[in-house]
């Protein structure tokens, strides 16, 4: 039996379905029906999404965005334990508390590295295409068992804790997937080609340093718009990198690719479009939604300027 990513979709679908039910029955939630519907729809996307016609799933995504956009996703009140209870239990369990928390990354790492060796009778145990995510899933299940044993809680309490944290995150949890979808729609619609055409037509690249700066800053700006350096790379490298930096100025393409992609990452540090790295952590840490981006701006801008000079010197050495 191979554990594929599909199993994780079922697992997440079940967790979301339970969350939807808990939300519907949560009288402390001022929007329990619309929020419950939101999580129920999201559960369906994971449980049967690939069986439905794509247009139906598209309609589900639109309804979810409308519910979230008009304030329909709110959390209930979750009673925190008292400070004394937290401290007492922290003292009782001590460093043991770190064990399940650190087990997640450790099992993920071991699973990812050993995935190609875990083959029984010709059948791999972990789907090699998604070995990291599948190992993460296995790590989380094992860590949950460890945590339940140690704290003498039931998995049902684990689901209640999931519900509490999902309530705290709200629609921000779905935003990364919405943005990923938008990136795919952009490439279907040919946005990248249009942007490359506009930049190469209206900026004079007869001066080599200007061309280098256009490539580096263009990678960052395009990543800011698309939320992902992978989407920006083909556009800027196809539009400016290959024809101008390599074609006209005969630069080293390996340096161009390396510095270009890392300039894209500077853009990732600056944009709300990279929700998984910027907005979701802010929601998880219960701080202003742009606080993480603000903390990253000085590093990203300085590094981008350094990159213009690095590329200019290293590419034409």
């Amino acid at each position, binding site marked *: 039996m191979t554990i594929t990513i599909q199993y994780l979709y079922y697992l997440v679908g079940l967790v979301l379905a339970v969350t939807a039910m808990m939300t519907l029955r949560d009288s402390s939630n001022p929007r329990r029906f619309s929020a419950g519907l939101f999580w129920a729809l999201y559960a369906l*996307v994971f449980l049967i999404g690939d069986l439905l016609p794509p247009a139906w799933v598209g309609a*589900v995504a639109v309804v979810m965005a409308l519910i979230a956009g008009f304030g329909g996703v709110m959390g209930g009140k979750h009673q925190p334990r008292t400070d004394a209870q937290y401290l007492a239990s922290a003292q009782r369990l001590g460093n043991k508390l770190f064990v399940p*928390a650190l087990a997640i*990354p450790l099992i993920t790492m071991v699973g990812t590295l050993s995935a190609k060796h875990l083959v029984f009778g010709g059948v791999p145990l972990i789907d090699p295409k998604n070995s990291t995510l599948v190992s*993460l899933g296995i790590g989380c299940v094992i860590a949950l068992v460890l945590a339940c044993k140690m704290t003498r809680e039931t998995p049902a309490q684990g689901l209640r804790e*999931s519900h509490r944290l999902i309530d705290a995150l709200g629609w921000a949890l779905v935003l990364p997937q919405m943005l990923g979808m938008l990136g795919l729609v952009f490439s279907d*619609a040919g946005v990248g080609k249009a942007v490359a055409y506009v930049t190469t037509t209206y900026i004079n690249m007869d001066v080599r340093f200007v061309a280098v700066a256009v490539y580096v800053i263009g990678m960052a700006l395009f990543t800011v718009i698309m939320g992902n350096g992978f989407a920006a790379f083909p556009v800027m490298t196809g539009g400016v990198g290959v024809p101008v930096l390599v074609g006209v100025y005969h630069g080293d393409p390996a340096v161009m690719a390396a510095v270009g992609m*890392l300039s894209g990452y500077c853009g990732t540090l600056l944009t709300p*479009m990279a929700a998984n790295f910027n907005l979701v952590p802010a929601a998880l840490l219960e701080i202003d939604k742009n606080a993480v981006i603000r903390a*990253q701006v000085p590093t990203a801008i300085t590094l981008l300027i350094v990159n213009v000079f690095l590329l200019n010197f290293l590419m034409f050495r």
Partner: protein
Amino acid sequence: MPVDLNLWPLIGVLIIIAGFALRFNPMLVVIVTAIGTAFAAGFPLDKVLAAIGAGFIKTRNLPLIILLPLAVIGLLERHGLRQHAQNWISSIKSATAGRLLIVYLAARQLTAAIGLTSLGGHPQMVRPLLAPMAEGATENRYGKLSGKVREKLRAMSAATDNVGLFFGEDIFVAFGAIVLMTTFLKEAGIEVEPIHVALWGIPTATAAFAIHAFRLHRLDKQLARDIAAEKKVAQGESA
């Protein structure tokens, strides 16, 4: 301009910038942009919905990394994980938020550079461990912290995880981005060795570490200044 090139989809870029700038709900901005861009490309209504649906299904892997650890982290938090992380760091007398984050930055970058990108992350490392430790180390020196200082420490913890991951993983030769880059260049008729792309990432990665570590080094002084200023204001009010 090539005959088959349609510039109308650029309207999507304008919608998304305007939407975020005017602070509309991001979920609404994204769905309106997706619909607008697909219409501008000349898709009929059913194809617009199908493009959105297909994209939404293909990207289902994205929330897994956040959703899966929640039950464990929630249970451990219920039993005092964050409080314990704070107590643990305060037993190390020389620890400051800046020093802690510099050590974490180096560890995150080095492990990502050898392909161990999963040894970190926001739900399983930053929220339950790193941010409480940064707060604990600071509290240990200055006593109870204001909301503003707390926010700064948490934001910087998340930022440090991101910087370490981004500018470490790209040096790892088997990383997906390197494969993507060499495949793209090959199609454009340019052969490059993946290892060369990985190695030429090192100068930028080093610069990233230097810049961010310098900012973290200054963070300690900044915190001392901010907290002193806050105390002064508080004393002024009570006097």
